[in-house]
């Protein structure tokens, strides 16, 4: 048995335990808090806000764990999705603009991926950032996961509970939209 399947089995056993006795949620909380916190932190880049969102996401997980069904994806994917929904909600609710810093090299990777000219040109990079800022919260979530947080397509597929091919299709549809907008300007 591989390590991943052992972890999945252990998680499923824990979930069953929590479904019978909710106090056992503490074990899952201890196991996943740091990972979920870091996932949220990478998206909001504020320690205190990440802490609040993480507690809120864990509370939602505790409320909904009775409804959780094992559909093959790891339990952690379910937790990450709850956390990400909370982050999207935070961005949508916030009245002021929240600045999220990204690395130049990550911007260059996106430019390379969609074969854009002027990878080294700061103006071209700024133009891409402006195009990213026009995307919806759900679209930027996909961009964040792939380019700024470095998740594999397999992980993204598990996150959305879709196939890997579907995850690739969704991402490239967003990138295509950016490229079309780029070419027409």
């Amino acid at each position, binding site marked *: 048995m591989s390590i991943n399947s052992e972890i999945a089995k252990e998680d499923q056993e824990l979930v069953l335990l929590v479904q019978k006795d909710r106090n056992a949620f503490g074990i899952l909380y201890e196991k996943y808090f740091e990972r979920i916190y870091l996932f949220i932190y990478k998206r909001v880049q504020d320690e205190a806000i990440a802490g609040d969102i993480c507690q809120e996401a864990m509370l939602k997980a505790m409320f909904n764990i009775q409804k959780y069904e094992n559909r093959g994806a790891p339990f952690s994917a379910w937790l990450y999705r709850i956390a990400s929904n909370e982050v999207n909600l935070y961005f949508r609710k916030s009245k002021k*603009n929240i600045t999220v810093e990204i*690395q130049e090299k990550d911007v260059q990777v996106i430019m390379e991926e969609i074969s854009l000219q002027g990878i080294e040109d700061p103006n071209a990079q700024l133009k891409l950032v402006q195009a990213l800022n026009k995307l919806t919260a759900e679209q930027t979530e996909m961009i964040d996961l792939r380019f700024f947080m470095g998740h594999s397509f397999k992980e993204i597929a598990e996150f959305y509970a879709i196939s890997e091919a579907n995850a690739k299709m969704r991402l490239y549809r967003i990138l295509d939209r950016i490229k079309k907008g780029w070419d027409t300007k």
Partner: protein
Amino acid sequence: MKEYKINNEQEPKVPSSETIANYKNFRQLSHEYDRLTKKPKVPLYKDKKAFLVLLLIVLMAFVLAQIADEEEEQDKDVNETTTTINQGSE
């Protein structure tokens, strides 16, 4: 609203495990869960304040019903008197 900005100067900071531990509090989470899910321990009719509010509502309803009854009876009396007067004049 979220806005991206390129940062060329420094590598992104990652909070340490100690910092993250400051935000970890299962007791608080559990307390919050209980607060949101558990029913009040004292039944509504045994809660003094709730009982007084309920009593006030029942009294108001009683008074309103009495007033409505009285008005109905007065209307009946007026109608009967009018009919008697009309019959007398005929």
